[in-house]
């Protein structure tokens, strides 16, 4: 009898121990430690070496987790969905997930922190940037960069072939065709996005430059306009006839790899990519890059402008320490330091700072800065259709355009697919 009781006790202790292991791992750490989840991004690469400065000055220790973009999104979603306090600060794209996250209560609003801070100077951010970080009248994130779609081209190849760089959307396929012909098909005329979730970022400028929008005033999709089919056709033709093989799987990684390897004559990508294609360590084409505004359509050159931000999780137990980090990382001094690694500053004062403007000393960087200024002035902040289902809506657009690129559908059918696919998803916005 005695050993029966003993064995039962032992077994229960074992089971109890296991249960305790399963339940107790979600502690938020001590008050002077924050956990930061970042996406693999030029900003992340630039900020990491500076973290020790922050740790020394503030006494707050920063635990860093970095993932590839998609994996970072998954990790962040998982932390938020499970209301975990193990993540304090995360990188976010309010233009993509802002409404979705805000409605779910994932963001800790930053307004109070920003107004209370004496040094922060939130008014230094341009109005468009601030709007981009605001959802339902609350500031959900602090801006860390500015980027937009520009057209990179190879100055040496254009000179060799005797071609003028394209200024309009109508010229773009003509120029691409000339490159294809003069290079004997050896050079990919243009590298651009085809992967469905990533495509709207570079597809949007085609739409906006032709005077169209993703949605109508009443919040329904605007793809029943025959002009939308024409835009789809322009993008898909460019990708299909003049893009790299396998373009439907490509996003900035593949496009920039092609361009940096010298295999593409033009690249339609984010201004951010200057960091990788203009770096002698990773690129063969440094010194041969020209940067242009997005080619003008019937409504002018209307690129897409995008700000990444950092947000504080509403489940964080160390919000004050988290704010200290946000305040430091998006403050003037740090943003000025980050410019030396090619991070375009969202702060007006930093963008005009002589220390920064003096570094833009090559023809490539000067053109890049001008194109970026145009992006900020004329770009649309709507990377894709806006709503709680933004990620899913982008996939609807990307899949439909992808089918045209693959020759599985024609442009009017794709426009109808987008119209039908977006309608119920936009209706969720209420």
């Amino acid at each position, binding site marked *: 009898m005695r*050993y*029966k009781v003993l*064995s*039962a*006790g*032992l*077994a*229960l202790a*074992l*089971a109890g121990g*296991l*249960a305790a292991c*399963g339940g107790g791992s979600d502690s938020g750490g001590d008050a002077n430690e924050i956990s930061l989840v970042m996406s693999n991004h030029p900003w992340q690469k630039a900020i990491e070496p500076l973290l020790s400065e922050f740790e020394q000055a503030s006494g707050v220790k920063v635990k860093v987790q970095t993932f590839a973009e*998609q994996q970072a*999104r*998954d990790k962040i*979603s*998982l932390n938020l*969905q*499970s*209301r975990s306090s193990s993540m304090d600060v995360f990188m976010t794209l309010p233009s993509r997930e802002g409404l*979705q996250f805000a*409605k*779910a*209560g*994932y963001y800790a609003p930053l307004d109070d922190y920003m107004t209370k801070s004496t040094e922060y100077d939130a008014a230094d951010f341009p109005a468009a940037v601030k709007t981009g970080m605001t959802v339902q009248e609350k500031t959900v994130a602090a801006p860390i960069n500015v980027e937009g779609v520009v057209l990179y081209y190879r100055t040496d190849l254009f000179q060799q072939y005797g071609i003028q760089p394209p200024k309009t959307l109508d010229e773009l396929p003509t120029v691409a065709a000339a490159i294809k012909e003069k290079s004997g098909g050896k050079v*990919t005329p243009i590298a651009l996005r*085809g*992967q*469905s*979730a990533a495509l709207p970022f570079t597809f949007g400028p085609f739409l906006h430059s032709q005077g169209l929008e993703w949605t109508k005033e009443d919040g329904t999709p605007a793809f029943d306009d025959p002009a939308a089919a024409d835009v789809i056709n322009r993008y898909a033709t460019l990708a299909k006839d003049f893009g*790299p*093989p*396998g*373009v*439907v*799987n*490509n996003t900035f990684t*593949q496009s920039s*790899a*092609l361009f940096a*390897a010298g*295999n593409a004559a033009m690249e339609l990508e984010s201004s951010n990519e200057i960091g990788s294609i203009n770096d002698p360590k990773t690129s063969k084409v440094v010194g041969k890059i020209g940067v242009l505004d997005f080619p003008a359509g019937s409504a002018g050159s209307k690129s897409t402008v995008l700000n990444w931000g950092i947000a504080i999780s509403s489940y964080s137990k160390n919000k004050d320490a988290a704010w200290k980090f946000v305040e430091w990382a998006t403050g003037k001094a740090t943003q000025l330091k980050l410019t030396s690694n090619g991070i375009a500053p969202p702060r007006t004062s930093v963008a005009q700072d002589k220390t920064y403007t003096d570094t833009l000393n090559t023809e490539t960087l000067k053109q890049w800065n001008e194109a970026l200024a145009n992006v900020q002035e004329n770009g649309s902040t709507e990377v894709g259709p806006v709503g709680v*289902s933004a*990620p*899913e809506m982008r*996939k609807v657009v990307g*899949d439909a355009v*992808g*089918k045209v690129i*693959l020759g*599985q559908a024609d442009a009017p059918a794709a426009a109808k697919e987008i119209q039908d696919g977006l309608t119920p998803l936009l209706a969720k916005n209420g």
Partner: protein
Amino acid sequence: MTKPTSASGAAKRAPGAGAPPRRGRRVDPIARGIWPFALPAVVVTAVLVLAPIAYTIWLSVSDRQADGTNAGFLGFANYTEMFADSEFWNALKVTVFLFAVCLIVETLLGLALGYVMSLDVPGRRIFQGMMLIPAITASVAVGLVWLLIMDPSLGAANQILAKVGVDPVVWLGDPDIAPWSIALVDIWQWTPFMALIIAAGIRSLPEEPFEAAAIDGASGWRTAWNVGLPLLRPVLTVAMLLRTVDLVRFFDTIYIMTQGGPVNATNTLNVYGYNTGFVDNEPSYAATLQIALLVLVVLIAGVFTWFRQRAAR
């Protein structure tokens, strides 16, 4: 001889004359206090397997929101939506395609390779060790390396093909080719694993039936088909079952290489469920898709088990 035996037997039985026979009590673990040792296993299974399944079923019939609240019981609305969802049927088709192609090719190649590995040749053990490398490499690493190899412009695969005068192949960017490319990676990774199990099976086969077949004058092929294969069947079924469970829930390589693209050509049920849950933030519908996947795994595993039992009879 009999007398002392019966006397000692009577003496032993005397104290507990009215009690049930001891043999029955000895196999009853509960009476011997053994059951508590099984408790941790039961608790762990319940907590880590049964509870998540029960919770997933609950999610699939309720309306869980992204903020963690649950708007309550929905009935079978998610299931109705799933059966009307063309992407679900596409994902099912892709899942079954990859399962069938990979399993058939891996089994056939595994048989051939397993036979070679069962032979006593010098260096066999080193070869066996090397064969295991793909299987013990993390699928994420395998996916990333193959992604580089299969890059249409800069990848090694097309550069090698170009050397022998073959036109470049768009490995992952063509919806007709991408599922085959994914299958190729899986076959590369898991055929050696099949071969190792099969080789071990072949080496453990009894020699007598083969000697008998040789005496009867059966040809090599006939011996392999009518003697070797039936004897190998239990091992083969286990190896195939292991691969089946993995293949039906195919996820990691695809997630790394195509994320279900191009245009959903490699969107397996598991990838679709994952994206629904974590990208689209629709946990309830994702749970419904996972239940469909669970049913599929159970069905296929059931068919295998049925085959095995039938063969055993």
